[in-house]
């Protein structure tokens, strides 16, 4: 099973033989064609050609037609500024500039680039019948922000009724775009609403939930699949996102995948993510990307998970990094080899840690693959060392790379399952993600305080 069929299975949370893979190729495809983002996003020919090139190179199961959250805004009169290596940015907000909401109309096919995008969708549908095509729709809250500017964050407090009117309109726009995409042949409608990562759960329930729930329901009724994308740290709203009843949620690397998995599956929603866009895909090497992808795959599992980058790929993402992930996805032997290179063998003797701890000092053990070859490991070790510095000799900080037996022994003895991980006095404090130094410092402070209390 592959392509749209596989995506459909994963979205239905069925057990799959292979985890589906959806690289969020947006302006990255312009790199594949050797043109600018500006040229790319303004030509159906380029979009069809660029997506085609990405399909050849990255063997995906699904792919977005375009990743540009300015399409609806542009059609509604927001001014755009174009860049060579980014999607355009909205620089004017009509509702701030005297335009009345009543004067805004749901865009026609001829407004802005809507026709161009729908033409590209139809042509891609024809060329790639097996592929899950994702039609990306700007979420109602983010579109409202394009129209009103950042004032919306205060107006939801000061004039909620006005904001509800605005959201009614932007929801109708999103619904109309979703309908067009489905008619043009898209399989999945992704409602992309990154700005919701900035609001609290109560505001989300009030200003996002009713609208996105409606869109998801309409998508389902039209026979397509829905996915709710929120880039940014939306951890506080993951549960509310699931309650809008999408078929899938997709999140970025700011949010731990195991947390998303547990929350989504508990709500009967599939989930996707979250290969690190920058440290791995943009700046890392092929090995880093493979390992990061494998970690996501092992954490996501074969039920209800879609492997994807955290958000849209940077234009300059090295092609070989994405090829490395694609190869890994399609090659179980390679996955096994990679796992074995990290795996812990069972006949290893557990060390005696009784002399490892210290009554007065905090003992920090950083378990890594090897900080000299694994970039995230290096950052984790650096972060721990820098956090420990101000505490001077009250902290003992050491790295245990599991490339050495001693490291494997420590990993097992401490019960560490993710790499890299920071353990303090035997407690797993930070796993996988590199925390801000201030968070590590705070934890060290807590451990020292606990020791002082114990001594007293």
């Amino acid at each position, binding site marked *: 099973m592959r392509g749209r069929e596989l995506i459909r299975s994963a979205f239905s949370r069925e057990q799959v033989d292979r985890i589906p893979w959806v690289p969020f190729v947006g302006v990255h495809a312009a790199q594949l064609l050797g043109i600018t983002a500006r040229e790319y996003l303004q030509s159906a020919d380029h979009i069809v050609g660029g997506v085609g090139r990405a399909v050849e190179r990255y063997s995906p199961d699904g792919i977005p037609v375009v990743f540009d959250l300015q399409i609806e805004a542009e059609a509604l009169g927001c001014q755009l500024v174009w860049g060579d290596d980014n999607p355009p940015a909205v620089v004017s907000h009509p509702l701030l500039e005297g335009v009345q909401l009543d004067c805004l109309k749901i865009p026609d096919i001829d407004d802005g680039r809507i026709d161009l995008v729908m033409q590209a969708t139809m042509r891609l549908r024809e060329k790639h019948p097996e592929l899950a095509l994702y039609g990306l729709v700007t979420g109602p809250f983010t579109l409202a922000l394009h129209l009103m500017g950042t004032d919306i964050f205060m107006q939801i*407090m000061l004039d909620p009724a006005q904001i509800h009117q605005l959201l009614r309109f932007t929801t109708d726009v999103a619904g109309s775009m979703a309908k067009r995409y489905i008619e043009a042949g898209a399989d999945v409608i992704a409602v992309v609403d990154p700005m919701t990562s900035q609001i609290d759960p109560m505001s989300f329930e009030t200003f996002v939930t009713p609208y996105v729930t409606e869109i998801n329901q309409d998508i389902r009724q039209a026979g397509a699949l829905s996915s709710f994308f929120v880039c940014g740290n939306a951890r506080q709203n993951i549960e509310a996102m699931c309650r809008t009843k999408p078929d899938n949620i997709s999140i970025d690397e700011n949010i731990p995948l195991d947390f998303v998995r547990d929350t989504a599956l508990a709500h009967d929603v599939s989930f996707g993510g979250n290969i690190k866009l*920058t440290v791995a895909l943009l700046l890392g090497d092929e090995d880093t990307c493979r390992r990061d992808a494998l970690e996501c795959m092992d954490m996501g599992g074969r039920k209800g998970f879609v492997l994807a980058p955290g958000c849209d790929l940077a234009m300059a993402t090295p092609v070989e990094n994405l090829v490395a992930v694609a190869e890994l996805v399609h090659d179980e032997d390679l996955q096994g080899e990679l796992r074995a290179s990290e795996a812990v063998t069972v006949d290893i003797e557990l060390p005696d840690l009784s002399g490892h701890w210290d009554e007065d000092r905090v003992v920090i053990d950083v378990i890594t693959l090897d900080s000299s070859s694994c970039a995230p490991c290096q950052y984790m070790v650096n972060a721990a060392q820098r956090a420990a510095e101000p505490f001077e000799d009250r902290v003992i900080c050491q790295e245990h790379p599991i490339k050495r037996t001693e490291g494997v022994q420590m990993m097992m003895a401490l019960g560490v399952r993710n790499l890299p991980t920071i353990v303090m006095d035997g407690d797993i404090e930070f796993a996988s993600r590199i925390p801000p130094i201030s968070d590590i410092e705070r934890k060290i402070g807590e451990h020292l305080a606990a020791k002082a209390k114990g001594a007293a």
Partner: protein
Amino acid sequence: MSDLLQQIADCIKAGKIDRASPYPPEMSGQDGADELTRQALDTGMTVDQILEQGLMAGMDKVGQAFRDNIIFVPQVLMSARAMSAAMEHLKPHFASGASERKGTFIIGTVQGDLHDIGKNLVAMMVEGNGYEVVDLGVDVTAETFIDAAREHPDSVIGLSCLLTTTMPAMQRIVSAIKQADPSQIVCIGGAPVHQGFAEQIGADRYAPDPQGAVEFLNSVH
């Protein structure tokens, strides 16, 4: 602390701008940061007292609640708005040297990136915490940052970006700034970046949120 200062702190924390503001509903009809600050000055309290024990005390709580994911951007903006309303009354006194700024923070969104939401939030919070903020706007080149740093010695530069696609620009700008002046302190923030990226590109610090930027500034000043 006097009741009045406590009330000012509470208004900042709750985002109560003035008597007319409907937010928060439970403080409807009460005086806000605007009126209470005026009253505090009228009763003879010093600018420093009002700033430290009223405004800053409130803002510290806002920062902490933001850090702990209890409040989010809308609430922080309301607090910043309440803070600005109060500062309007205090500003005339700063010019006369009654109170000094803690330092200068130069901020801008990196070249190629036109997003200003995150940057504006950080600028508001940093300013609200007693720093002078030089806001260079969006799409800022390395040269503009370097020129601003020359104009404001001992400043800290903050770079913002929203797009993954402009992270390489952030990297280029940090290295140009460091090349021009290796001792120049640079911190970065924005949705796609993190501590690992900060270390990789040679920035001094990654701040995950506006409060992180404030704490970093407090630590270097």
